């Protein structure tokens, strides 16, 4: 993108009095936003505050009910995504918007493919794509199909796509949710570079430390209304939280938690899973051994593609394993399907809520009880309505899930509450081992805090909790013991007191095994 | 040399019992004359039957007995056959615009429809109210049979009034449901139901029986299937149209084989059998009476 030195004070984008209602929900009411050229502007708020809706309006994915948008001093009409792109507004959406059956290169340049005559110029396309992906440190064959990439890799493709455009305003809706430290670092360098070129960035995240590190100003929304804006240098994290939540939230403590490890519940021995028989590079999990103890929270750390998710899925019987043993309470068990895992008291909260956990066409009640129906079933396979409602009610209180009614479609809960519903689904089975993969991906601090405390309670209650997280602070806060992985191998193990961001990062990136 | 003679026997669609019978008769006669056959089912599709004919020519058959699924659409394929010096005899239905068809043996559907009409004139001299159950829209037998019926009745519109004309797609269940609906919609029931095949007639019969109107309403079918004959015998249907498919088929095979083996062309051509309406009184004329216990 070419450099344009713009006057830093006149706003590049001015949004006034925007309202947007969806059938049944008022997502935004009279919201205003002002973004200056060359600044990184954080847009913050709890789940369901209206951030994505506002951004989708800027991107032309939604039409506002009321309100005006001024871009570069001119009032503009953004009716469809194409309009936004024409203005130089480029968006990285929260939900991925890649075309799974096309290659990385095609996705980066979709709609803007270089052509020779009527034909796509493949050579040019792939080589241009290579350049962009290299710049953000995603070094991959641009001809790979996007559907074969991991979540994080897909996120990087999204970013590459945005950077490849003639952008004046780059919107990033929770780009770091799927990334781990190194990529986040890289992303921040990219943002700095954009700013240097006078390009503005609107940045949504639930990780406030990132705001402090990368952003100049913040605007906070609550329940679809504007709470206020401020210069980052003038405020502290706690102020932001108060603006977002409207009350204090204790953030860093471990709720007075002291680890007391109980008996070994889960033991994994030399587990290996090949991704693909005839492609050695695709080995997902190599010869992994680890143990999890009752009452202990075991963290699994690593960079993207380290194989954590694959390991979890393999233990849970969701993917076939090629070799290795799994022992529960000392006895070897054969787990080939999730049913087996569940029978032996293992639960898994998967990494991708919408794709792998939620039944979006169903209400909250059936979503929460889906795995536990056996316990609620009486003669002739009838589900006891009363028992079921009682169960849902119990977990609504226990996890303080904010819902209007049990019959509400799970789809219009906020991310945090959706995650709680999924957690409740597993708690209802009271498992011996609970594996949670990216438990707070994309949920707001308040909810995140609640989830963390919930995990502490579970450990207290004697469950062996295994947490996979790409967020180091989260790992450090939750875990009593941390196992690190790299390229499918275990690279080390640290007790909490010995673990620091530095020591972890070392293990994430080096192969030698520490004690 | 008879043994190594092979002929193609092709009918429009084996989903209709009428043609199943026709094919069977052809094969029987062929076996009797020591000739091998290749069976082909047109599956109600001219292209499919064309494909079968072409395959047979490749196979090197010495002759073709065929009941074309369509008078015009089958012309190109049969023309090819003639070009390749494969003699062709058509049964029941003709094929238009092909020079050098060895012979046609048939009782065409229009005449059959007319026979139904004549039966009406004879049995209801002073007029009648009629429901006409047509066959599958667009299918040539449906068109021809309907045409035949109208040829007769349209001359006496004063006396013979068609109170309802609906298709039941040659299907029994639709014959039943359509008749049900029509009867429910009429203040006073019709005198006669004319159906374009026996399936629909038998369906209609069930509907009429359900309303206990069987002694008021007479039903005439088409094709003289054994089931229809049985029904006539037991006082169900009033009549059905006999086209002597067996006779046609056997005659066709004889003509063809005679030509293949002795190079004799038939003296009479086309061989036309006049369809008749079978009733309780002339049931003995029915070709397939034997199949009815």
């Amino acid at each position, binding site marked *: 993108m070419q450099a344009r030195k713009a006057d830093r004070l006149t706003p590049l984008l001015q949004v006034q009095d925007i309202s947007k209602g*969806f059938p*049944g929900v008022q997502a935004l009411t009279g919201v205003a936003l002002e973004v200056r050229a060359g600044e990184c502007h954080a847009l913050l708020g709890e789940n369901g505050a209206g951030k994505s809706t506002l951004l989708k309006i800027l991107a032309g994915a939604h039409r506002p009910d009321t309100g005006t948008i001024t871009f570069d001093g001119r009032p503009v009409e953004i009716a469809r995504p194409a309009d936004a792109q024409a203005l130089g507004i480029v968006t990285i959406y929260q939900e991925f918007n890649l075309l799974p059956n096309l290659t990385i290169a095609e996705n980066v340049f979709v709609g803007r493919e270089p052509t020779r005559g009527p034909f796509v110029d493949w050579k040019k396309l792939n080589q241009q794509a290579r350049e962009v992906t290299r710049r953000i440190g995603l070094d991959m064959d641009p001809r790979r199909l996007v559907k074969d990439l991991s979540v994080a890799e897909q996120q990087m493709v999204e970013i590459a796509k945005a950077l490849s455009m003639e952008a004046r305003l780059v919107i990033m809706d929770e780009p770091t949710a799927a990334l781990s430290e190194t990529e986040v670092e890289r992303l921040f360098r990219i943002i700095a570079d954009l700013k240097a070129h006078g390009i503005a960035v609107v940045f949504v995240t639930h990780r406030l430390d990132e705001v402090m590190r990368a952003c100049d100003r913040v605007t906070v929304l609550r329940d679809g209304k504007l709470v206020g804006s401020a210069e980052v240098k003038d405020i502290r994290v706690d102020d932001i939280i108060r603006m977002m939540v409207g009350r204090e939230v204790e953030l860093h403590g471990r709720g007075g938690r002291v680890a007391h490890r109980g008996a070994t519940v889960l033991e994994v021995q030399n587990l290996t899973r090949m991704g693909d028989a005839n492609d050695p590079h695709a080995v997902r999990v190599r010869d992994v051994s680890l143990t999890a103890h009752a009452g202990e929270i075991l963290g699994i750390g690593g960079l993207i593609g380290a194989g954590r998710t694959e390991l979890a899925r393999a233990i*849970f019987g*969701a993917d076939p394993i090629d070799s290795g043993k799994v022992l529960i309470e000392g006895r070897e068990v054969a787990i080939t399907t*999730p*049913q087996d*895992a569940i029978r032996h008291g293992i639960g898994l909260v998967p990494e991708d809520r919408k*794709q*792998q*956990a*939620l*039944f*979006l*066409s*169903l*209400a909250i009640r*059936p979503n929460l*009880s*889906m795995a536990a129906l*056996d316990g609620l*079933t009486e003669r002739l*396979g*009838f*589900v006891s*309505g009363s028992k079921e409602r009682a169960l849902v009610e119990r977990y609504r209180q226990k996890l303080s899930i904010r819902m*209007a*009614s049990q*019959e*509400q*479609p799970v*789809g*219009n809960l906020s991310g945090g509450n959706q995650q709680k519903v999924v957690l409740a689904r597993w708690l209802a089975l009271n498992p011996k081992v609970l594996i949670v993969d990216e438990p707070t991906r994309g949920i707001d601090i308040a909810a995140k805090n609640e989830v963390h405390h919930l995990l502490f309670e579970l450990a207290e209650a004697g469950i062996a909790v295994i947490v996979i997280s790409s967020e180091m602070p989260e790992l450090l806060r939750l875990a009593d013991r941390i196992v690190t992985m790299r390229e499918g191998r275990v690279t080390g193990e640290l007790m909490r007191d010995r673990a620091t961001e530095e020591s972890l990062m070392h293990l994430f990136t080096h192969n030698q095994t520490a004690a | 040399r008879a043994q190594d003679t092979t002929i193609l026997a092709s009918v429009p669609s*084996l*989903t*209709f*019992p009428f043609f*199943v*019978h026709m094919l069977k008769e052809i094969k029987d006669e062929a076996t009797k004359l020591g000739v091998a056959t290749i069976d082909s089912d047109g599956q109600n599709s001219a292209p499919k039957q064309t494909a079968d004919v072409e395959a047979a020519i490749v196979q090197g058959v010495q002759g073709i007995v065929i009941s074309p699924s369509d008078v015009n659409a089958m012309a190109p394929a049969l023309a090819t056959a003639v070009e390749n010096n494969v003699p062709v005899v058509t049964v029941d239905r003709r094929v238009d615009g092909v020079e050098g068809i060895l012979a046609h043996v048939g009782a065409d559907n229009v005449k059959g429809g007319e026979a139904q009409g004549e039966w009406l004139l004879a049995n209801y001299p002073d007029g009648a109210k009629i429901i006409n159950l047509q066959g599958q*829209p667009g299918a040539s037998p449906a068109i021809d049979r309907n045409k035949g019926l109208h040829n007769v009745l349209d001359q006496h519109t004063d006396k013979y009034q068609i109170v*309802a004309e*609906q298709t039941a797609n040659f299907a*029994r*269940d639709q014959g*039943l*449901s359509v008749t*049900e*609906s*029509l009867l*429910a*919609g009429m203040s006073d029931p019709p005198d006669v139901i004319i159906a374009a095949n026996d399936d629909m007639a*038998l*369906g209609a019969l*069930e509907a009429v029986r*359900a309303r206990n109107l069987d002694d008021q309403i007479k039903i005439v079918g088409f094709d003289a*299937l*054994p*089931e229809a004959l*049985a029904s006539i015998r037991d006082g169900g249907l009033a009549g059905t149209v006999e086209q002597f498919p067996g006779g046609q088929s056997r005659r066709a095979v004889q003509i063809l084989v005679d030509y293949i083996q002795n190079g004799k062309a038939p003296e009479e051509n086309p061989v036309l059998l006049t369809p008749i309406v079978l009733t309780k009184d002339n049931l003995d004329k029915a070709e397939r009476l034997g*199949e009815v*216990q």
Partner: protein
Amino acid sequence: MASATQTGETRNGGIDLFGLLATYAPLIFLLVLMGIFAWLEPRFLLPLNLVNVMRQVSIYGLLALGMTFVILTAGIDLSIGAIVAFAGLAAAAVAKGGLENRFAAGADASALGYGWPLAMLVAILFGTFAGALQGFAITRLKVPPFVVTLGGMSAFRGAALLMAGGGPISGFDPGYTWWGQGYLFTLPLIGRIPVPVVVFLLFAVLAHIVLSYTRYGRHVYGVGGNPEAARLSGLNVRGITMSVYVLMGFMAGLSGFILSARLNSAEAVAGMGYELIVIASVVIGGTSLFGGIGTIFGTVIGTILIGVLQNGLVLNNVSPYVQQIIIGLIIVLAVAFDTFAKSRRRRA
């Protein structure tokens, strides 16, 4: 399922008009249609005629119940028409004691054959088996349902033709035909209620209960809504998928038996094109072809709607050609109306 989306209840417990509209769109559409027909031809409303309609739809209806389960799992079954024919012939053969004496008239038939109970059983077994076969291909060979049942459509029809040798089998004893032509009881104004109608409604109630109140029903919605999530929640996705095709086969077998009883005859060409009518009924009833959304209530309405349409057009003696055009348009309009109604409701 008793979810807000179906019961039209809002978060705050009040009544949500759009929710209701969305829930009852098919019913509303049906009533409007009936209104029009009644206005064009008053006899349409005669109890006799309405009973006819119900009897005519009862067989489509039974099939549509099974199809609802299939479509709820985002599947489809194109083979039901063929299975109906196949099962009907099997039943007839049993009832007549073999294919030889296929036209033996009522009286002596019963003597020769093995009676209707066995016939019915055999029809259902054949149907269920056919369904299981296809379920196997779908769950084990991983071939999409559309393809498997397209193949089944051809194969089972062929089997039926082979079995029948092209000819029909007819003339059953009263015990047999009772299932298609008999009456169970008489209601005041309405009159005698045909057996097939009662069978249909009984199974409809049963299906509704199973789908809404049993664990199995829940699992069907789950598998349809999100197979991967279902698997990770420990549901036996394969088993459940298998089961819906078996169920469909069972219904097709039963329908085949009742159809043959109704026509007092079984033939290889029976049930041609039923699959499309039945799928249309289910979809018109608001069930999503993408799975996870749908109700038995809707399916019943959808089935009746198609029946009313056919009956009303014939009653008004509309030209057969025009009938086809109208039916085609109504199918699209009905679904368009339903889609529209749903879209106005709070999105799930």
